[in-house]
């Protein structure tokens, strides 16, 4: 919903990005409404074709392997997918060990610094605070 650069990538890269997010939904074996909402939000940002969206939703039922997601994926799409995987993993309030391990693996695959996941997590929680500020602003209107 905020200006991003994912929509500027070639269509096949956007599809690869979305496949990685679909993989992430299954890492902790449960897909919460918060994670689903974040997944759908990022999918919307990626401007996939209706057919690609359908394929991605099918991938939710039968997720691809991490290796197949990363294979041949461009660096820019991969880094954005890592960021949005962090957003999704944290959407239910916690990032469990399995999720953290996968995030570190993706970061290493794309040659990011050792502290990249940690920095993205801090950035994510800063974003949650921003959202909370928005709620508080609106809640104040009802008083």
């Amino acid at each position, binding site marked *: 919903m905020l*200006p991003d650069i994912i929509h500027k990538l070639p269509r096949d890269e956007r599809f690869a990005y979305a496949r990685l997010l679909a993989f992430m939904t299954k890492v902790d074996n449960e897909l919460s409404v918060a994670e689903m909402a974040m997944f759908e939000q990022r999918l919307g940002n990626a401007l996939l074709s209706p057919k690609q969206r359908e394929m991605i939703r099918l991938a939710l039922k039968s997720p691809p392997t991490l290796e197949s997601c990363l294979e041949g994926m461009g660096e820019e799409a991969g880094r954005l997918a890592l960021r949005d995987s962090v957003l999704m993993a944290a959407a239910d*309030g916690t990032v469990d060990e399995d999720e953290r391990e996968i995030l570190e693996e993706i970061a290493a695959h794309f040659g990011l610094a050792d502290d990249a996941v940690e920095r993205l997590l801090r950035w994510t929680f800063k974003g949650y605070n921003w959202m909370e500020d928005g709620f508080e602003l609106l809640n104040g209107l009802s008083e």
Partner: protein
Amino acid sequence: MFTDPLGDCSPNDKRIYASILVLIASADGELVREEFCAIEALMGRILIHPEVRIDIRNLLNDPPDLDELLMTIDSSLIKFVLRDAALVAAVDGAYDAAELKVIRRLAAAAEVEDNTLKEIFDWVNSGLEWHHQSLNILGL
């Protein structure tokens, strides 16, 4: 954590919410890709049914009437519409006069005064800054 009360509202209210966002995006007569992305993302965020999204996209060619939408929307949702209208209007980098006109009408409907509207704009700006920081972390 990123769920929104809008996600729990009725399918009809979700449709009206998204229709108003379409109005904002098309207010200046020019729909840029960033605005389209924002609408798609916001529709995804509140889990609007894929088939309903098709109807919403079609509204881009034939925008609805704001007064009619405001008459039918649940009054408690108008402030959320106002918030997200400000987001959609900002994504192409500037608030256009036509977009501001619609936003001000939404603010009036939500009984939001100018100083609070400014707070909403400030909140949008801080969100834009926050999101941009991610690109620095990623080296993009």
